[in-house]
């Protein structure tokens, strides 16, 4: 019984600490662009931020809500506060914590899982921080090369490079479904070339179409499964 009360007071203080550091981190991250802006002699254009938020921001807001609902139970309280502060969830923190959990055989929702996932995520975040700090120090002398004329086309094409890689990753999960929004978007952008200056806004109809198609397919499968 004594262990139960130790655990409960640990959880209680974890929630308090987690909330405090999350709020501080939020303030720091939102404040930083204003401080850097002061150094550069320019402040953020809030109108542009609002417009861009309405297009891309909404997509990432939905994905944040899903991530919160799915990952919080897996990671426990301490682990999830830390994970949402330190990021890189799907590509590192989640598999890392799952790996640690399996290694020691901890079950979701137990005190053991709470401790192990916090240890795992804190360790993982610290390793990233150290490796990136070392990497950045090594990058400083490479600056002239990175900013050379020869490499300029590379940096001008970061976005197509990202979407090429993501296209293979996601299209192969459901190629038949992917062909429809892709074709519609190709036709639209070809016939209305002026849309290319608002590509990020076009994510909304394109994403809505893909989600609608996925929903229709899902419902059909569920009906098929129920009918059997």
């Amino acid at each position: 019984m004594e262990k139960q009360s130790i655990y409960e007071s640990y959880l209680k203080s974890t929630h308090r600490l987690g909330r405090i550091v999350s709020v501080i981190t939020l303030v720091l991250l939102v404040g930083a662009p204003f401080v850097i802006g002061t150094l550069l002699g320019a402040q953020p254009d809030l109108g542009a931020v609002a417009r861009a938020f309405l297009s891309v921001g909404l997509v990432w807001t939905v994905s944040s809500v899903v991530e919160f609902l799915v990952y919080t139970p897996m990671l426990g309280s301490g682990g999830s506060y830390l994970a949402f502060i330190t990021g890189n969830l799907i590509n590192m923190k989640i598999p890392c914590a799952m790996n640690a959990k399996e290694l020691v055989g901890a079950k979701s929702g137990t005190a053991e899982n709470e401790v192990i996932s916090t240890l795992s995520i804190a360790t993982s975040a610290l390793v990233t921080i150290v490796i990136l700090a070392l990497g950045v120090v090594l990058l400083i002398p490479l600056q002239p090369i990175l900013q050379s004329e020869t490499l300029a086309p590379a940096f001008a094409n970061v976005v197509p490079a990202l979407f090429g890689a993501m296209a293979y990753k996601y299209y192969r999960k459901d190629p038949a479904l992917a062909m429809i929004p892709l074709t519609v978007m190709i036709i639209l952008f070809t016939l209305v070339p002026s849309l290319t200056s608002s590509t990020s806004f076009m994510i909304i109809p394109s994403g809505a179409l893909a989600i609608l198609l996925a929903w229709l397919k899902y419902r059909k499968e569920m009906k098929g499964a129920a009918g059997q």
Partner: protein
Amino acid sequence: MTVLEQLNGGGVYLICGSIVAFIAVVCIIFMIRAWRAGKALGMDVTRMKRAVTASATFSVLPSVGILLGVIALSGSLGVPWPWLRLSVIGALHYETQVADAAAEQLGVSLGSGSMTAQAFPTIALLMSICIMWGMILSVLFNKKYLHKLQQGEKTGERKGGGFGDRAMTAMFIGMVSAYIGSYVGEFVSGNKKLFSFSGSWTPLVVVAAAALAMAVFTYFSEKKHMEWLDNFSIAGSMLIGMLAAVLIGR
């Protein structure tokens, strides 16, 4: 002094570095607390040690992959800002896309030459705002949500399975389609002339090169059981796509 030189200046390093340092301290505090709680709860110390060692080794390769992401973004946003974003909060695909969308609103593009002192703070602010929901939801609902789950059944490990996973995949399919569609439109109906085929085809080649690289990464990681390659697949494919742009030279 160019904007990029300013973005790589000591002041920006100091701001970003202090935030990274703050979060490192937070991680250490959480770690010490969890360790002490584990001991107080009578957990086996060797098992806790194992969890820490396994997590440290597990994180090395993905972290190198993340470092490649810093390099990919450094040409347009300087080194310190991507360093902060990727060290502590973001993920490469998120940061790149949001930065690009903000740049689009401002009429600049994420290339080395076109960043302006006016554009950067706006882009940086949007990058901060779009990803803060995980933290906000944690502050508001983490306690209640976990409490509710505890009171309910303890089995529900995979909440939001079913359609949730598919909706996420579909959302990304839609997002990718919009961008690829725009590259096709840009080339086919370039310079605002329908079917002139006079636009730039470089983005299309870059998309193809990056997708091909991703296919090769996936083949080796899935068929040849080299799962560690997954850690480099996105950043590696991006760098290969970017290399294609350098080879074309425009």
